[in-house]
C-alpha cells in the first residue's frame, strides 16, 4: 500500500504538470482541481500510514543507499507534505478563480504551479544531498517563472533579482555537497550521519556546513540576505506570493534544519548556532519594523514574512548542545511555527489580494471603509494576523509557548526578548492595517465585491491556523515519531 502511495505522490504532480501544459487555462483549471483532490488524498493517506506505523526509507529505482537515491519518509516529512497539499490546494483553488483566463500567458500558470508542487515534495522527502539540490533548483526556477509570469518591468526586475539570489544560494549549497562528497564518498544524508557518529571527524569540514547553511539562508532570505524577498513576494500575483511565502521559502529552511539536526552536532559550533540565532532575532525586529512602515499592503505582508522567518532560525541555537528533550521541544515549536505561519501567511496574502481587488489600489490607506462593506476578507486577514502575533488560541501561540519553554529550559533566556518583542511588533503592523480599514468616512459602497468563494478560501486557511492551536498535540505526535530506518523497500 505504501508503495502505491509513494508512487502516486511522486507521479501526480509531474504528470499533472505535463497535462496542464498541453491544455489552455480553462481546461487546465478543471484538470488541476482533479489533480489537487488526488494529491490531497495521497498526502492524507501517506500521513495516516506514517502516523500508524512510523517512518520508512523509500529506495528509488530499487538501489541501496550510497549508489541509488533514497527518500526518507518520516513524521516530519509527511507533516510537511500534508501542509503543502493543504496550502497549495487552497492557493490553486484561489488562483483558478482569481486569475483572468483570457490572458494568453496565464495558460502557463498551471504547469509551473505543478512543477513547484513536485519540487516541494521532492525536497520534503529527499534523503540524498544532490537530489535536494536538484529539488531546490526545480522550486526556484518554477517560482521565478511564476513571479515573472506576465509581469511588467518591476515584476521582471524582482524575478531576476530572485533568480540571481536563488542560483547563488544553490551553488553555495552545491559547493558544500561537493566537499562532503569529497570527504565521505557518499551522498546520502543518513550515510554521512552514520559515518560522522562512528568515525573521527576532521575539523575542517565545518566550513562545508557553513557554506551550505549560508546558501540555504540566502534562499530563505535570512536577515542580511533578505533583499530579494519583499519585491518578489510583493509584486507577484496574490496566489503566487501566497505559495512563495508559505511554502517555497520553507523548503530551503527545511533542508538547513535537517542538515543542522543531523550534521550540526558534530560539524556546527556554539558560536555558529548563536550567530544564526542572532541573525534570526534581528530579522524578527528589523522585518517587523520595515513591515510597519510599508505603504503598500502586499509589501507589509512580504516584510512580515521576512520577520517570521527570523523566528524559524531560532531552531539552531535551541537544538545545539542541549538535552534531547529540550531539542525535541524546540523542534516541535519550530514545526508548529512553520505550519501556522504557512497557513496564516497564505491566508493573509489571499485576503490581501481580495482586499486589493475590491479597493482597486494596493495602498494601505486606500482601505478606508472596507470594514463596513467587505468585513469577511478583512476578518480572515485579522485572524491570520492574530496567528502571526502568536496570540492564543492560534497555532502561533502554541509554537511561541514551546519555544519559550525550550529557551528557558536551555538557559538561553535572551531569546525570550525576541519572541515577545516579535509578537508585539507584528501586532503593530497588523493592527495598522486594521485601523486603516476601520476609518469610516464614506457611506457609499464603491467597492468591487469579489465572488463569495474567493473570500471563503482565506477564511478556511485562517481557521485552520486558528484550530492548529487547539489541535497541536496530534499534529506534533506524528512529527516526533521515532524514525525506523530500513523498513520497506
Amino acid at each position: 500500500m505504501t508503495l502505491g502511495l509513494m508512487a502516486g505522490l511522486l507521479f501526480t504532480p509531474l504528470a499533472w504538470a505535463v497535462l496542464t501544459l498541453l491544455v489552455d487555462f480553462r481546461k487546465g483549471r478543471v484538470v488541476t482541481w482533479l489533480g489537487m483532490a488526488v494529491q490531497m488524498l495521497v498526502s492524507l493517506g501517506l500521513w495516516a500510514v506514517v502516523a500508524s506505523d512510523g517512518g520508512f526509507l523509500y529506495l528509488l529505482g530499487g538501489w541501496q543507499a550510497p549508489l541509488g537515491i533514497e527518500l526518507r519518509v518520516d513524521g516530519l516529512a509527511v507533516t510537511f507534505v500534508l501542509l503543502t497539499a493543504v496550502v497549495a490546494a487552497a492557493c490553486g483553488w484561489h488562483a483558478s478563480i482569481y486569475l483572468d483566463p483570457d490572458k494568453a500567458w496565464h495558460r502557463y500558470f498551471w504547469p509551473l504551479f505543478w512543477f513547484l508542487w513536485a519540487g516541494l515534495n521532492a525536497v520534503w522527502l529527499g534523503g540524498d544531498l544532490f537530489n535536494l539540490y536538484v529539488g531546490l533548483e526545480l522550486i526556484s526556477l518554477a517560482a521565478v517563472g511564476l513571479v515573472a509570469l506576465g509581469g511588467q518591468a518591476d515584476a521582471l526586475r524582482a524575478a531576476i533579482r530572485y533568480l540571481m539570489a536563488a542560483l547563488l544560494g544553490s551553488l553555495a549549497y552545491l559547493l558544500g555537497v561537493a566537499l562532503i562528497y569529497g570527504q565521505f564518498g557518499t551522498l546520502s544524508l543518513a550515510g554521512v550521519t552514520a559515518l560522522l557518529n562512528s568515525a573521527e571527524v576532521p575539523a575542517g569540514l565545518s566550513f562545508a556546513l557553513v557554506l551550505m547553511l549560508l546558501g540555504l539562508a540566502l534562499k530563505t532570505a535570512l536577515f542580511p540576505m533578505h533583499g530579494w524577498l519583499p519585491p518578489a513576494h510583493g509584486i507577484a500575483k496574490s496566489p503566487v506570493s501566497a505559495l512563495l511565502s508559505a511554502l517555497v521559502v520553507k523548503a530551503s529552511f527545511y533542508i538547513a534544519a535537517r542538515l543542522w539536526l543531523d550534521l550540526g552536532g558534530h560539524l556546527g559550533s556554539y558560536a555558529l548556532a548563536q550567530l544564526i540565532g542572532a541573525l534570526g532575532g534581528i530579522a524578527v525586529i528589523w522585518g517587523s519594523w520595515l513591515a510597519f512602515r510599508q505603504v503598500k499592503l502586499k509589501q507589509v505582508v512580504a516584510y512580515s514574512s521576512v520577520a517570521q522567518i527570523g523566528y524559524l532560525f531560532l531552531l539552531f541555537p535551541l537544538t545545539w548542545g542541549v538535552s534531547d528533550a529540550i531539542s525535541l521541544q524546540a523542534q516541535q515549536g519550530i514545526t508548529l511555527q512553520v505550519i501556522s505561519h504557512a497557513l496564516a501567511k497564505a491566508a493573509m496574502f489571499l485576503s490581501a489580494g481580495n482586499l486589493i481587488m475590491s479597493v482597486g489600489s494596493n495602498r494601505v490607506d486606500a482601505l478606508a471603509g472596507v470594514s463596513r462593506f467587505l468585513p469577511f476578507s478583512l476578518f480572515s486577514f485579522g485572524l491570520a494576523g492574530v496567528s502571526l502575533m502568536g496570540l492564543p488560541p492560534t497555532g502561533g501561540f502554541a509554537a511561541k509557548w514551546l519555544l519559550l519553554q525550550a529557551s528557558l529550559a536551555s538557559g538561553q533566556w535572551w531569546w525570550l526578548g525576541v519572541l515577545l518583542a516579535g509578537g508585539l511588533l507584528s501586532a503593530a503592523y497588523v493592527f495598522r492595517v486594521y485601523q486603516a480599514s476601520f476609518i469610516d468616512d464614506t457611506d457609499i459602497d464603491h467597492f468591487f465585491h469579489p465572488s463569495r468563494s474567493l473570500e471563503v478560501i482565506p477564511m478556511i486557511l485562517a481557521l485552520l491556523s486558528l484550530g492548529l492551536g487547539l489541535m497541536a498535540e496530534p499534529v506534533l505526535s506524528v512529527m516526533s515519531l521515532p524514525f525506523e530506518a530500513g523498513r520497506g523497500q
Partner: protein
Amino acid sequence: MMRFLGVAIMVAICLAFAGGLALTVWQIAGTPAPVNLPHLLAENLDASGVDHPITAVLLNFRSYDTLLEIGVLVIAGIAGISMAKTTSLEDPDLRTSDSLLYALQRWFVPLMLVLAGYLLWAGSDRPGGAFQAGAVLAASGVMMRLGGIPMDFLRPGMLLRFGLALGFSVFLLVAVASALAGSAFLAYPEAFAKPLILIIEVVLTFSIAMVLLALFVSAPVNRTEEPEEGEAG
C-alpha cells in the same frame, strides 16, 4: 573613494573564501574516503543494463535526478515561452536572406544531424548520450533559424508544447509503469533495462533540443500591456 573601499572589501571576502576552501580541500585530500562508491558501482554495473558507468548512473542508479533535471529544463522552456506574447515566434523581419549562409547550411546541417545520431548511440558504452545529442541538434536548429529557414513547429502552439513535454512524459510513464508493476518508482525490470533506457534517451534528445531552441527563439516582442496587480488601469 567608496567604490575602492567596496572593491577592497569584496576582494578580501573572496580571498578569505578561497583560503577557507583551499584549506578544506587540502584536509579532505589528506584523508581517504571511507565509502568507495566506484567499486560498489562496478559490481552493480551489469545489473544496470548499460555498460558505460556514467550513463548507468545517470539513467538507472540516479535516474530520479535526471527526471527532475529534465523537469527543470522543461520549466525553463515554459517560462521562456510564457515571456513571448507574440502569436508567432517566427518574426518575419528576423529572417536574413544571406546566400553564403544558406549555402553553408546545406552542407553543415545534415552533418550535424548524423553527429547527433552517433552521439546518441555511443552513449551506451562510450561518453555521449541524450544531453550531448540534444545540444548538437539544438545548435543545428539555431543555425537553420539564423539562416532563415522557416520552422513553423516553433510557433507557440500545440506542437511546440507537445514537443517540450514529450521527453519528460515518456520518462515519467516508464517510471510509473515500473512502480505499478510492483517494484519501486523508477525501478526498471532487469531484462528491459537496456531498451527502456534507449527509448528514454532518444525521446529526451528531441525534447532537450526543442527546449533549447524554444528558449533561443522566444523573442520578447510584446504588444499587449498587463498592468501590475492593483495598479491603475
